[in-house]
């Protein structure tokens, strides 16, 4: 299902994902992650350009959290998590 969402991701989904990544998610992903497309250089979590997570992996991680990374399930609506998944997987070319 997530893949279907990512596959049909419209440009606004990607734009929404980028906005969340760089600032609107709280805390923003970029604070902890480096992602060239987003222009972020966070050094707490893995460099997403290297990790190239697919959409399902981004969605699972953002929903559940992992290690010291917060879970966003109760902070972000499912549509935002899908937008992040679409954005990160396309920005890193993983999709």
């Amino acid at each position, binding site marked *: 299902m997530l893949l279907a969402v990512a596959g049909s991701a419209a440009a606004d989904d990607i734009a929404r994902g980028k906005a969340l990544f760089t600032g609107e998610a709280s*805390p923003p992903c970029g*604070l*902890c992650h480096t992602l060239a497309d987003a222009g972020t250089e*966070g*050094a*707490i979590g*893995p*460099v997403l350009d*290297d*990790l*190239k997570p697919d959409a*399902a*992996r981004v969605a*699972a*991680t953002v*929903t*559940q*959290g*992992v*290690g*010291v990374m*917060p*879970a966003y*399930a*109760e902070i972000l609506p499912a549509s935002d998590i899908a937008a992040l998944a679409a954005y990160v997987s396309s920005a890193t070319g993983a999709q």
Partner: protein
Amino acid sequence: MIGQHPINRRKFLLTTGGTAAGAAAVGLMPARALAQAKPLPAYADWKKPDAMIVHTAQTLETTRAGMGSPAITPADILYVRNNLPAPSADITADPDAWEIAFEGVGEPGTMSLGDLKTYGVESIACVLQCSGNGRAFFDHETSGTQWSVGAAGNVFWTGVPLRRVVAAMGGPSASARFLTGTGGETLPEGLDPTTIIVERSVPTSALDVALIAFELNGEPLPVAHGGPARLVVPGYYGVNNVKYIKKIAFTEEESPAKIQQSGYRMRPVGESGAPGQPSMYEMSVKSWVTAPLMDVSSGRVVIQGVAMGGVSAVSGVDVSLDGGGSWKAAEFTGPDLGAYAWRPFELVTDLSVGTHVVASRATNAAGDSQPENFPPNHRGYGNNGWKAHAIELTVS
């Protein structure tokens, strides 16, 4: 010829897509590891690359074959799991100058590692294992590193027994219920520290066995494993063994850090982590096969592996060659290094041509045995089900 691979995991199906020749070698790694053969990160570049799977810069797994079945795991193949990026190795330049603050004791204060050593030094062998070891064998989707068997090792720690230091400082405060250790990683600006600080609380009973460790297998503790000093709680999952230990406090409440409050909590699939759910503290009885050695002409096979008891000494291991239909007692091939250590085992047997599902099932002195299946749980913690850890051996 002999081929082996772990079974019971959809990911395996992905790994066999390659050539038949490659399948035996690659089948032991989760699919993700294959997709990206990343170099070792600089802070751990002294590890043996062939024995390590680099999941991320902060999560390095020992391969099943690379682990073998040693009584003690050499440091250069020991897994690494850092919750935050490892600090600069500069902090290990002068270990004796490293300072640790003590709070919640009769006379709080700060002591250098050099001073702490004057309270005496002990060594202990124990299993170090990540809570998520075996996560890859669950069928539900889990976030986090997909460890199979290699987020574990059996090592010697040398350090200062915490109980002696605390006794000298007047003992824990009367209201203390938890021993709380804080890691010394530098935290980024702009974030509430409790969201990412590595701070873990364990019951004060851990004081009886806890060490402030400064050596790993007789060598100064490297930064990759928490040097210059690490809190070691024998029998407890890795996360409780706080690296770069900067503060030890006896507290009435558990740490407010997220890693304590909602992280590392055992709960049903679909539930968020919260205080009140069991925290990942004591390890459980577990074993796995690491190698079959085979005399091709006779069909003679030596099944080898490692077995641990958790917090009660491992007392026996049975091996099944038919997926759990029947079991034979294996023999320990290494010394009894105490309740918290693992022991290598082996079973010498003859195998006919065909495919055999080889499983191991350990029992500890308290009478606990590995279950056939460990219940799926949200974060994929604590897997010690024997079925998931079995391998398939093909004799042809």
